[in-house]
C-alpha cells in the first residue's frame, strides 16, 4: 500500500497486493474511426451470455440501447451534429439545451439551403477500469476487486447486490440487474485475457476503434494518433481519461473523442469519491464527538 493508494498516479495491481503482477492491460477506444456498427455490443453479449435489453426504439439517432447497464457492457453512442450556422444561433437565442436530438420544431430551423456540413459522432462506451475505482473502493463484500492485470471485475459468486458501487461510479457505468439482483459490468474479458486472448469486443471491432493492449503502449499510441489528427486538421480531437493526474488517477479504458465529453454522456471532470473519504471520516468524527458531548452536557447538568 503506497502513498497514492486512495488518489493520484498509481500502478493499481501491485498496490492491491499482487507480487510481480503482469503489465497493466486496458482499452484505447479511438472514436474517430468508429463506424457505429455495434459489433462490440453483440460480441460482448455473445461471449458473456448477457440478457437483451428489450426492443425499444429510443429515437436517439441509431442508439436504441440507451446506455451502459447491467445488460449492456459496451454501448455505442450516436450524436448527429448538423453544423448549419442558423442552428447554433437559433439555439443560443432560444437558450434551450441542445440535447443532441435533431430538433424539428425550432423556429427558423427549416433552411432552404442544404446543410453546409454535418458530423455524425459515434463512440463505443465501456467501463473505465479506473486507477482509483469508486465502485471497487466502496464494495463492502470484496466482490469488486483489482485483478492482476489492473482491471476491475465483479465476482458474481460474491456480490450480494447491495448496490453501493452503482452510486459510487463517477461515470454511471455499473448497474444492478433486475431479476438477478447482482451488479454487472464489463470484466475486460478477465477469463480471456487470463489465457492471453483479446477481449471479445476488441477482437470483433472492424476498424480497430477498440484497441486492447498494455496501457503504457496504448497511451503513447493514442498521443501519436491525436497529433496525427491535429495535423490532418481535425482540431477537435482530444484524449479523455488518458492522464494519470485526472480525478480517478487515469482510466484503464480511455478514449479519443471529437467533442466535449458530456456530448457523449461522459462527465467532464470526474473525481473518485474516495479522494474525500479521509476528510469525510474526520467530519463524521467531529459530529460523533459533538453528539457525545451533547449527551454528556444534557445529563451532567443540574439534576432536574
Amino acid at each position, binding site marked *: 500500500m503506497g502513498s497514492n493508494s486512495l488518489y493520484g498516479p498509481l500502478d493499481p495491481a501491485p498496490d492491491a497486493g499482487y507480487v510481480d503482477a503482469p503489465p497493466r492491460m486496458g482499452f484505447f477506444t479511438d472514436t474517430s474511426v468508429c463506424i457505429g456498427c455495434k459489433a462490440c455490443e453483440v460480441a460482448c453479449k455473445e461471449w458473456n451470455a448477457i440478457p437483451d435489453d*428489450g426492443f425499444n426504439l429510443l429515437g436517439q439517432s441509431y442508439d436504441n440501447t440507451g446506455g451502459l447497464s447491467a445488460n449492456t457492457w459496451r454501448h455505442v453512442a450516436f450524436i448527429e451534429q448538423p453544423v448549419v450556422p442558423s442552428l447554433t444561433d437559433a439555439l443560443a437565442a432560444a437558450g434551450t439545451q441542445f440535447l443532441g436530438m435533431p430538433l424539428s420544431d425550432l423556429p427558423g430551423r*427549416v433552411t432552404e439551403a442544404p446543410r453546409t456540413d454535418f458530423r455524425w459522432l459515434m463512440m463505443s462506451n465501456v467501463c473505465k477500469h479506473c486507477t482509483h475505482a469508486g465502485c471497487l473502493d466502496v464494495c463492502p463484500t470484496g466482490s469488486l476487486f483489482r485483478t492482476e492485470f489492473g482491471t476491475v471485475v465483479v465476482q458474481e459468486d460474491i456480490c450480494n447486490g447491495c448496490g453501493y458501487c452503482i452510486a459510487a461510479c463517477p461515470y454511471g457505468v455499473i448497474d444492478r440487474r433486475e431479476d438477478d439482483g447482482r451488479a454487472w459490468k464489463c470484466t475486460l474479458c478477465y477469463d480471456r485475457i487470463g489465457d492471453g486472448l483479446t477481449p471479445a469486443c476488441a477482437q470483433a471491432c472492424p476498424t480497430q476503434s477498440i484497441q486492447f493492449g498494455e496501457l503504457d503502449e496504448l497511451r503513447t499510441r493514442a498521443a501519436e494518433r491525436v497529433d496525427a489528427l491535429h495535423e490532418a486538421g481535425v482540431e477537435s480531437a482530444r484524449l479523455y481519461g488518458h492522464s494519470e493526474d485526472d480525478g480517478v488517477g487515469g482510466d484503464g479504458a480511455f478514449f479519443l473523442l471529437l467533442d466535449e465529453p458530456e456530448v457523449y454522456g461522459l462527465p467532464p471532470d470526474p473525481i473518485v469519491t474516495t479522494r474525500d473519504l479521509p476528510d469525510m471520516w474526520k467530519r463524521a468524527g467531529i459530529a460523533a464527538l459533538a453528539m457525545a458531548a451533547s449527551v454528556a452536557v444534557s445529563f451532567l447538568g443540574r439534576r432536574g
Partner: protein
Amino acid sequence: MAEAHPVGFQWVVEAKNRGAKVIHVDPRFSRTSALAHTHVPVRAGADIAFLGGIVNYILENEKDFREYVLAYTNASMIVSEDFQDTEDLDGLFSGFDPSTNTYDQSSWMYAGHEKHGQEHGESHVQRETAAGQQHESHGAPLPGDVPRDPTLQDPRCVYQILRRHYRRYTPEVVERLCGVPQAAFLEVCEAWTANSGRERTTALVYSVGWTQHSVGVQYIRTGAIIQLLLGNMGRPGGGVLALRGHASIQGSTDIPTLFNLLPGYLPMPHHEQHETFQQWIDAIRHPGQKGFWANAEAYAVSLLKAYFGDAATAENDWGYGWLPRLTGDHGTYRQALDMIDGKIKGYFLLGQNPAVGSAHGRAQRLGMANLDWLVVRDLYMIESATFWKNGPEVATGEITPETCRTEVFLFPAASHAEKEGTFTQTQRILQWREQAVEPPGDAHSELWFFYHLGKRIRARLAASTLPRDKGIQNLTWEYGDDEPSSEKVLQEINGYDLSTGDLLSTFNQMKPDGTTSGGCWIYTGVFADGVNQAARRKPGREQSWVAPEWGWAWPANRRTLYNRASADPDGNPWSSRKAYVWWDPAAGEWTGHDVPDFEKTKPPSYRPPEGATGVEAISGDDAFIMQGDGKGWLFAPAGLIDGPMPTHYEPAESMVRNPLYGQQANPTRKVYDRSDNPTNPSPPEQHTEVFPYVFSTSRLTEHHTAGGMSRQLAYLSELQPEMFVEVSPALAAERGLDHLGWAHIVTARAAIEARVLVTERLTPLRIEGRIVHQLWLPYHWGSEGLVTGDSANDLIGITLDPNVLIQESKVGTCDIQPGRRPVGPALLSFVEDYRRRAGLVPGHHTPIVTTHSAEDADGEQ
C-alpha cells in the same frame, strides 16, 4: 460500405490513415459518410447525370491518362457512319424500333462491321433472357480487325463520340439534376482526376443497390468508363469493386441457380437461337472472334460430360438434346405474376424470403396463395412460409387460411456451421468451410435434401421409357449414401481428365472431344494438383499483401482481373510504386504479385498474324483478353440492350421531367403492363403531384436482407427494434411528422406504416428550380420474428433493367402522411383512392417512348 460491409470497410480506414481521400456519394448521410472526408448528397436515380458530368470534366479538360487510353481502350476505334447519338435523336440511339422497344444494334458497330451487329429479334431475346449476365465473365461477340485513328481526332472515333455524348453534362446540369452544388461536384472531379494517372490510382466501390435501377447496368458502365479514361482498371488501388450482398451471391451466379445461365456463364439453350448443339456452341464462341472465349466448346462439352457422364457421346451431341430450352423471360418476377395467374403448380424457397425480400410483396404473396404446393427450406420461420396465416393480405381479407389452397411444407435447414462446402465471396474467392457439428433434429443441408430428392425421383422414373425422362435417367448422381460428399461435388465442378481420372488443374486442359469433364470451367483449378485449394488457410500475415495462398479465386486464382493493364504496352509497370504485373524479359514470361491475366509467355511485342482468331489473335498489348477486341470499352458496340453509352434517363417513377432529352425514362426497360403492377405517373404524364416525394430503400448494419437471419435474434433485434422511416426536418415540418411518431408511406402498390426518425442526415435538394424531398426506408421488416413491422418492398413495383432483369427498388416516388395506416379492408380502398387520383385507372398504360417527335406509339412488350 460501412453500413452493409463493415469489416470490408477496415481497408477504407486503412487507406484513409495513409492519406487517401474518401468521398461518399449517396442520397443519405450514412455511417460510411461519417468516416468519409466528403459526403455528396445526390438525388436518387440521377447517378448517370453525376458520373456523366465527371466524364465531361475529364474529356473537356483532357485529364485522361492518354497513354493508357490509347493502348488499352477502344477510344481510337472508328464507329459506323450509320450511328446516331441521343444528341441527334432526342434521347434515343439509332436503330430503335418502337414496336418492340429494342434496338437494332448494327449501327453501333465499328465501321465496316455493321453486319455483326445484333438485329431486333436478337435484342428482344437478349432482354427476355437477361443475356447481359453472360458478360460477367466475357465480353460480347465482335470481329477482330477494326479501323482506328490513334490521333483521336476523327469525329467518328469513340473518343470524340464520347465527348459529344456528354458535352451537355456540364457542372451546371449536374447541379440542376442531382442537387449537388457545383463547388462540391468540382471537388469530386478534381480529387478523382488528381489521384489517377501514372503514379496514383483511385478505386471505385459500389454496393449492388446500383444494379437495382432501370438503368442499373449503365450506372456501372459509367463508372467503368471513368476508371478506363483515368487508367485505374487492372491496377492496385484502382478498379471497380462491387460489394455484393449475400455470403455466396457471386457463387450463385458462377454456378447459377438462375434461369438464363448454365455454370460458367454459358447461356441456357434458347428454343429458336440454339435449336441445335452447333448453333448453341457457335452462339457462345462466335467463330472468327479473338479472345479467350473461343474455346467455349470445350467448356460446354465438359459440362455435359459432368452432367451425363458416359451417356453423353459425340453421337448424341453430348446429351444436348436432353437440355430444356428457354422461350423468353422466365425470371422470378415473371414467375410471381404467372403464379398469380395460376400457371405454376409448385415452388421451392431455398434460404430466400420473397414475401419480404422481393419487390411488390403483395404480388409475391398473392402468387404463393395460388400455388398447389410450396416447399420452404430455412433456418427460421419466415414470412414466405406463413403468408397464409400472418401475411398483410390476411388482415385485408384477400387471403384467408380457410380459402387458401396452397399446401405448405416447412423443412428445417442446416446452418453454415452444420455442413461443409464453399462460399464464393465478392472478390471471387472460394473459401471452404469445415463442418463443426451435426444439424439438429430433422435439419439437413440442401445438398442432402436435393441428393435424396433426386434419388427418389430417379427411382420413380427408372423404368420409364418416355423421352422426357432420358435426361434424369442418364444424370450422374452418385455422391455417397447418406450425407453426400461436398468434396466429391466440388471435384465434379473442377473437372476430370476422363482418360486418366486425374483432376484438371486449369481450364486450358479442357477438350471439346468428350475426354474431359467439368461442372464449371471458370472453377477448374479449385482442385489443382488434386488439392482442395479453397481450403487453404495460410495466414495472411505469412503471405504477400495479395495473399494468393488463402482460399482460391476464379479464374486460375487470379486476384485482380485485367492486371496486364498495370504494365505499359511494353510490359514495364506504369510506376514502380504501383507495380503489380510486368514482363520479365530474362525469364521470357509475365510475372508480378498476382497470377498474370495474360498468356504466361506471350511477349508484349507479339502481334497476331493476319486472319488469326481465338487466343492466337490476342496481341501483346490487348490487356482485356476476354473482350472481342482485347480492349476496354468506352463505347459498347454490342452486348448492351439500352445503348452503347450510358445516358441520363429519369427513373421509371420520377416527378422531374428529363431536361436533357424528350425520352423521359429508359425506353428499353422491362415493363409488365398489368393492372396488378401499376407504376406511379411520371412526366410527361399528369398527376405526378399525387406522389410528390422521392424514396429509396437500403440496409442497416444490424439487420440482414429480409430479416430471417437477424430479426429472429435478440442481440440484433434490440439494436434496431422497429421499422422506421427517415425524413429531413424540412419534410417533417411540411407534412407535420413528429420525431418517434407514426407515419404511413403510400405508392400505387401499397401503403405501409413506420415510426418516424427526423434527421439532418437527409437533406432537401434543389432540383430544376424546386425543392425535392427524399425519404429513406430500411427493408428488413416483416410479420415474423422477435421484432416485426411492415415491409418496404411492398411499396415497390416491378420494372426491370433490360440487361439483367433486376427490379428498380432503389428509387421511386411516394406520399407520406402522419399517423398509422388504415387496417383491414379499408387499407385496400385507401390505396385504390391514391391510384384513382394518380390516374392509374383500368386501361391506363405507362408511356414508354416520350420523345417530342415520336407520335404516341406505345410499344408493345
